[in-house]
């Protein structure tokens, strides 16, 4: 009985049935794993088909070079042999190869360590997701509670955080954000003005563009555009920073030193954003009106004086402060989402990315939902 498979210029294996109960595996040629090496599947088939096989032995006299490719092949062979209770006589293998094989088999495979890959049924997945959402509401509430306690400490003058951190965060989410807020809110003003002009100029009422832009910016657009900018800019940064601190165990180090991360890290961020959001919003309102004026004067042929007068007569403190109040609240939501997601971050670099993404999604969703609620409430109480 003599069978040969896959003889080529590369690594090759051939099988000889020497005696009735013995199979001689001949390995020859250079075995480079970077080239194509024979697959152990062929040999496995041979082992399974042969009956009354008791031992296998190896002949490597024709072997010119070997690397991991051959070891992997032999490990496979060995697994197949053990499954069929066939003994292996490894004396024909080179010393180094034999020792590496022993090394590979020295630590038995840990049983039960393989992650379960079975996919849960559809309804179970929906159930799990729902429970997950339910739990995350709980986490959110717990976080909010911790934050309240931290604020209470702050009120009693016992909060532990470094003033310089607060100043740094304020600079980062205030002054450093002015550039992007300028650009976006000016353009939003321009867009609002154009949208109004299309209809209003048909009635010869172009001057009311000033009213539209003024009310639109101060009531809602200024606050919501600033909030969206800050979610992407600062909310994500909070989550990434705190997430990285979690991964590198900096947060653990704070906790074990008896410094509450809630006070030390979250408090300054919430305070900074709550303080800076109304200022940025006020600035955005002003820039938006400037953008509207740019369109009114430049494209609609209104005089600057008329436009300004119309704007001033429309501007009410109620609208202005309503917008600033909303902005302050949005700032709180953004800081909350950023810090919460940062704290919930997993233990790897990809988790930090996920945390930042989730923080932005969560804060934008919360801001828009809050905006809708405010619209209804303001309408009901007649502001």
């Amino acid at each position, binding site marked *: 009985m003599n069978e040969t498979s896959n003889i080529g210029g590369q690594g090759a294996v051939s099988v000889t049935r020497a005696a009735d109960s013995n199979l001689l595996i001949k390995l020859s040629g250079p075995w480079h*794993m970077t080239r194509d090496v024979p697959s152990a599947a062929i040999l496995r088939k041979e082992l399974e088909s042969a009956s009354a096989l008791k031992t296998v032995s190896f002949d490597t006299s024709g072997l010119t070079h070997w*690397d*991991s490719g051959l070891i992997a092949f032999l*490990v496979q062979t060995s697994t197949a042999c053990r499954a069929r209770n066939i003994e292996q006589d490894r004396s024909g293998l080179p010393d180094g*190869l034999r020792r590496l094989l*022993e090394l590979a088999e020295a630590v*038995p495979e840990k049983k039960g360590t393989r992650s379960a*890959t079975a996919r849960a049924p559809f309804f179970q997945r929906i159930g799990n997701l729902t429970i997950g959402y339910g739990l995350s509401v709980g986490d959110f509430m717990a976080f909010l509670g911790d934050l309240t306690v931290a604020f209470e400490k702050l009120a009693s003058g016992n909060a532990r955080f470094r003033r310089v951190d607060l100043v740094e965060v304020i600079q980062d989410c205030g002054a450093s954000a002015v550039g992007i807020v300028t650009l976006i809110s000016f353009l939003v003003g321009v867009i609002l003005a154009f949208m109004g002009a299309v209809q209003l100029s048909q009635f010869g009422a172009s001057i009311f563009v000033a009213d539209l832009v003024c009310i639109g910016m101060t009531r809602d657009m200024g606050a919501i555009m600033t909030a969206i900018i800050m979610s992407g800019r600062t909310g994500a940064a909070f989550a990434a920073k705190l997430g990285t601190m979690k991964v590198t165990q900096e947060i653990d180090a704070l906790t074990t030193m008896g410094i509450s991360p809630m006070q030390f890290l979250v408090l300054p961020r919430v305070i900074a954003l709550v303080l800076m959001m109304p200022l940025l919003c006020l600035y955005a309102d002003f820039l938006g009106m400037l953008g509207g004026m740019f369109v009114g004067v430049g494209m609609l042929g209104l005089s600057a004086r008329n436009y300004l007068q119309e704007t001033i007569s429309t501007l009410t403190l109620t609208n202005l402060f309503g917008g600033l109040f909303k902005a302050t609240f949005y700032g709180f939501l953004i800081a909350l989402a950023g810090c919460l997601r940062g704290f919930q971050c997993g233990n790897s670099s990809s988790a930090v990315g996920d945390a930042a993404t989730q923080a932005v999604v969560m804060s934008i969703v919360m801001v828009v939902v809050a905006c809708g609620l405010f619209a209804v409430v303001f309408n009901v109480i007649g502001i």
Partner: protein
Amino acid sequence: MGSLTVPQTAPTKVRPHITVKNLTMAYGSFVLMRDINFTVHHGDIFIIMGGSGCGKSTLLRHLIGLKEPATGEIVYGDVNFTRADLQTRELMLRRFGILYQGGALWSSMTLAQNVGLPLGEFTDLTPAQIREIAALKLALVGLSGFEDFYPSEISGGMQKRAGLARAMALDPEILFFDEPSAGLDPISSSLLDDLILELRDNLGATVVAVTHELASIFAIGNNCVFLDADSRLQIATGDPKDLLANSSDPRVRKFLTRGKDGGEH
């Protein structure tokens, strides 16, 4: 891992594998070390040692091309690594296996994917073969059964061993280790030493390791360079066991005897 005897005999092939000539390392205008000269031979286990902050890891970064020498050059075999163009360098780097201090496993991939990535990029193996070889490499470092785990799901020591499995993925000619035993318990660390020897002997790899673990230095090292932070010079090179027996430099003796010796010199 079987009983292993530490081979004390010099490797049979005494050909220079890595030659460092007049290397000066600097960060901007701050010179960290100057006039470093040493030769690593084929099959050596070469130890880079010295006190904390003397530039051991920086020297390693120079050797693997992550940092450019201020002056001097690094030669592998007869190819000048420092002067080589980008393409040659890339090919040379493929023959290196590097174990970083923290393991540096890619956290978004499973262990098998971590080990399999270089195999998939640089060989024509089929996915099934890649999986087999990745499983083998993980088995060699004692991690069979952990193929589908993510790095964040295993302990620090296991991450380190998985990092070694990844470093060995392409059967490298030279293995670089940055603090291989840092963060390992004494038994794991001695098993790792055995593994390094085993790999050197059986795969014919040259090993360069940064370490200040004295036990490891004497157990596996047969060549070394000693960097001194104060003089910013290399003050010794050669077999660490020889240095312990014969060196007259008090700084070297003090280091190699954990500060017990060196006062009387």
